[in-house]
């Protein structure tokens, strides 16, 4: 591995290695732009995952809504948010999950000026 991708703690620096790992998941999420596809997904999540060729790890992460695992496996936040929208989850809900906070606490921190990491 000769990747020069910067390593920044607490941060996904999305690169082509990640992108390749998460291709089937991101393709699935992109398809959810269309409402007919959203209906099919909701109807049979398992079959929908198979249709997009998700391997067992990716499928498990989707079915269990393990958002951290999805990112670890190469999901892009801009794609995954389209899956979250089906569950009526907002970016703040996900922010809470990523940081181990309640949504309310996460929003409160943002309103207080955001989270600082000096």
């Amino acid at each position: 591995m000769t990747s020069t991708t910067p390593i920044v703690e607490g941060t996904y620096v999305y690169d082509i290695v990640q992108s390749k790992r998460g291709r089937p998941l991101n393709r699935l999420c992109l398809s959810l732009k269309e409402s007919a596809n959203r209906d099919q997904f909701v109807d049979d999540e398992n079959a929908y995952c198979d249709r997009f060729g998700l391997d067992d790890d990716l499928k498990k992460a989707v079915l269990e809504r393990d958002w951290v695992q999805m990112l670890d496996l190469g999901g892009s936040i801009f794609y995954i948010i389209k899956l979250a929208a089906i569950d009526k989850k907002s970016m703040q809900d996900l922010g809470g999950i990523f940081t181990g906070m309640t949504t309310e606490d996460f929003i409160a921190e943002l309103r207080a000026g955001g989270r600082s990491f000096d």
Partner: protein
Amino acid sequence: MTEIIWGLGTSHVPSIGAAMDNEKAQDEYWKPLFDGYAPAREWMAENTPDVAVIIYNDHANALGLEMIPTFAIGTDDHFNVADEGYGPRKVPNVRGHAEMSEHILVQLVNDGFDMTVCQELDVDHGLTVPLSVYCPEPGEQWPCQVIPILVNVLQYPQPTAQRCLALGEALGRAIRSFPGDLKVAVFGTGGMSHQLSGARAGLINEKFDREFLRDIKENPERLAALTREDYIREAGSEGLEMIMWLIMRGAIGDDIERVHETYHVPASNTAAALTLFAPVTAS
């Protein structure tokens, strides 16, 4: 001679668009942001461009990950507003300027910028929110034609900040060499500091943002010398979007004054800001 009459740096947060679309601009939460926009909006309403060149990034609405261009230009004369998963924003579709976009494309390629040509493009909030920041109530039709320029900010390796500034300088030359006497505005969009995922989700770095706002006018070379890692560490993985402001800054050039500036925390997960520059007119 075609001239650049102003340059706008602005965040392009989807919830800013949603707040306008749902008429929440006067809500307690949103009012300070929109009040901050007001003086710039008044000034721009009196200085209307024929064409807006809008530098932005797509957010998984028009481009898939199978093919990611570093820099792309939309050359069509019509761009539909993208359906981002909830139906398209209730704003007018976007009219392009095919002749000027072709001119810009050719000049940029001749200048050694390896543009990707998008002949078909749906434009997402990255482009339409800045248009709404400029013009909150367009009615049936946006008041200007639009040339979209897309930048890869989502996937490493993004273009360097230095390369963005250089692209902006070439873009300025290309615009000014377009025959006729059109008035053009250039939009740099994205930012300010924010990070959507990972343990640092919710990051906002006001100090970095304020220094960026200062130096985007005073010292763009300092901002151009920052690495991608600097931007990600200081401004968050999505704060890197600010490199797109450098393209606007390169295009409008050094002889400018700041018409207005505002900074607001937060617009949902993001520090939001606006800065408006106009060329200093020779006296």
